[in-house]
């Protein structure tokens, strides 16, 4: 795939329960990521069955998706922290290559 002019980085997406979000957020922020995107109330089908998304009066007990993009050399540190967290809590993580047009935003 041609990505002329774009810079390669690592994208990490984490789906966790709302109660785990502060821990994941803290890990991302202290691992050198310059930012993240958080989507609360995500729904979907996983190995544990269907997960309800938005609940009318409970924003805490639904799943959240956190996305961050970091330079490749910072990914290993963050992943080292995320893996034990996800071993103890329900959640999944996706790691993939990505390309950005404004790399200075992510350094």
């Amino acid at each position: 795939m041609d990505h002329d002019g774009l810079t390669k980085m690592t994208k990490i997406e984490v789906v966790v329960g709302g109660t785990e979000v502060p821990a994941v957020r803290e890990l991302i922020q202290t691992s050198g990521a310059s930012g993240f995107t958080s989507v609360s109330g995500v729904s979907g089908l996983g190995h544990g069955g269907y997960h309800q998304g938005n609940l009318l009066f409970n924003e805490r007990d639904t799943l959240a998706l956190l996305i961050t993009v970091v330079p490749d050399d910072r990914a290993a540190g963050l992943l080292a922290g995320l893996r034990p967290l996800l071993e103890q809590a329900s959640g999944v993580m996706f790691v993939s290559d990505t390309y950005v047009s404004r790399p200075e935003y992510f350094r």
Partner: protein
Amino acid sequence: MTLVADRSAERALLRADVSLAAKVLAPNWPLGTFIAVNPLGGLEDKPFGDAIETAAGALGARGTLDLTTYREAHAAGRITSADLLGVLARRHPQALSAPAVGLAGRSVPARELLLADLLEGPVSGPPARGVRTLSEQVDPQIADVIDAQTTKWCAAFLDAGQAGWSMPMRDRGFYAAWRALAPQDRTVPATVRGTLRTLPSRADDAVLEALSVLEVADEHRAEYLRAHLTRLPGWSSHVRWHADQGEDITLVDLLALRLSYERALLDTPVAATADPQPLADRHPTTQARARAAIATFDTAQPKDAEVHAVAQVLDLLPARDRELMWQEAYEGHYRDRLLGALTRPLPERSEARPAAQLVCCIDARSEGLRRQLERLGDYDTLGFAGFFAVAIRYHDLAGGRPSALCPVLLSPRNEVHEVPAPGDEARADRQLAGQRALSGVEDGFHAAKDDLISPFALAEAAGWASGPLAAAKTMAAGPYGALRDRLHRRAAPPAPTVVVPQESFGAQERALVAEATLTMMGLTKDFGRVVVLCGHGSTTENNPYESALACGACGGNAGGPNARTAAAILNGDDVREHLAAKGIAIPQDTWFVAAEHDTASDRVTLLDRHLVPESHHDDVAHLEADLREAGRRLSAERSQTLPGAPSGATPGRAARHVRTRGTDWAQVFPEWGLAGNAAFIVGPRAMTRGLDLGRRCFLHSYEADVDPEGSALETILTAPLVVAQWISCQYYFSTVDPVVHGAGSKTIHNVVGGIGVLAGHDGDLKLGLPWQSVADGTRLVHEPMRLLAAVQAPLERIDEIVARNTILQHLFGNDWVALAAREHPTDPWLRHTPRGWQPWTREDQA
């Protein structure tokens, strides 16, 4: 690059370890907005039994009452042998069906041996922390110094405005401020200050450095960090709350402080190890249990073979499960009777239009008010979460700090302002001027009292008045409170005000709020001329825990503003048009009125009376009179259990008495709050109407017929039930372990920094509820039981909802909440189990 990446990975791994270590600690809210939480909420993904074992090892906390207390309850008839056998049949059927054992010539069935062990067997020892810090092992005095420093710096940084001086460099964040200040703190030795001067600029690096110096092995690191966090679980839990809010203090910062002091204070090589040491088993051996069981059958010198045979039976009931068996029997006794009561034939319902409908919060205390009002006339009452589906940030007329009036499961979604009623702006100005003058006097008095020098001048100037005033507050609390209220009303006469939801709720949002509210509680037809939305609060004097008595659905605040907002929405013409289009036709002559129930005084105040149309004045006046009488009768009912209340008092005298309690600054039992809470009932009021549930049940109205998709039930089970379970667990754990999970005795509490209380002048921030919220002396007023949810709805619908919500799978599947359900009133109650729905009471144990 590799070194940098390695360091980054080390830091990330450390933070993961800290998160895992903190699972045994729930966030602890500040006292001003006391939020009942499950102190073991982080362990809800484990079965209840495993969670309390984990907490026993980490915190040294009890997870149930002790065997002696259960046995006393058995002797008193509160638990029966049939209750115990019922639990054994469900939990340990293989033990019950074990072969009989021959003892002294007779064949003793397994059930008798198991009962003998439960009733007479040796008790287990108290739980103890399984992993201790190095300083605890080597020199407890050093451990105390670390705790004292933790308390000092946390109290300084987290102060919410109580202290005269704020901590310097607070804006840099906790770790940076402490790192800058601690080396100048002469309360620690110079050598320690020297080490503190060398600390790295990052808190995580400071923790890693200290762990390295203390030689904590990587595989034991999370446990070691937990040992430090659980030394002072109160401060750790409170820091966790701040960290979750994104504030500049985290558990890593806290550990950096603690571990840095530890490495500096333990500056000589130590013989102890930071690795966890196995604790002696606190439970008796099966052999010891067998001998004790045999002794109950008059077998003085049992043969080894007999002991062995009995031990084989008892092995099928592990010693650690015995307290849990008793707990389930204790709960089962209550639950069987409650569900039995809910199985009676339903009372005839009048076809006539009700005189009025009163919608109360689901709070268990509302049950008493509803029951008393229903006895006085043709009233319908309903239950709904007391924030009435409006998650608001409320700005009152005085313009002080706004309040988040919604469950903590939500963030406020709308800003609502209280403003003068049209035409009453001048009166509102007068009220505000009076309030400012009064608060100026009070603030000046308290500031002078709290300052270093001015108390001497204050004593000279105002001492002559303070003494008699204090005597009046103590000896004549009722008249003093009434006088103060009169003075306040005279200085700041209340002006008519309104809330205007249209300013922050869009038309569609108002319509959805109205529709959701009415559908969730099944109030979609047969409206009365007056429908009251009744929030609640509790007015008490000199009570740091006042917020714990207010409405949990309103974030530990009084719910009047929510009721006003919801009533204003439901009285809107455009909203009613929308509802009519959805098949909910509210008659033109139906008026929604807001109210607030003061659970300390049993008074119900109708709010926004000036908005009630003249056509409804008579209806409202009649209702008010009945609410007054219902309140008086409720006072008489509550007075039966309030310590020091006149016994057998008339409703009038009881009403005066409870009002006095609320204004008595020395009263440690202003009311019992939610003590006794035990069940959450979801269904139409017909299920419970006419029953005296003893103010022990959360009642959420629900009509399955108007909720074919199950969305209303899903909302009820994922929000009000979750809040009720937090409340239930808070009361439960504060009762079974008042030292670790509870706040201990109120009588020695000191409020610190406006964020919590200490027992005495130092030590840990206290968690949970004070002893006086759950007990009177040594007598438990709160019976610690996990919540029972009794739901009248199609079982398939419940199954679908549970299947798509992890929180419900944890609560029901891991025994944090018991779930009973039936589809129709005539159906038997069924029990939710991992094997599907089972009869609540099996025939072979009935």
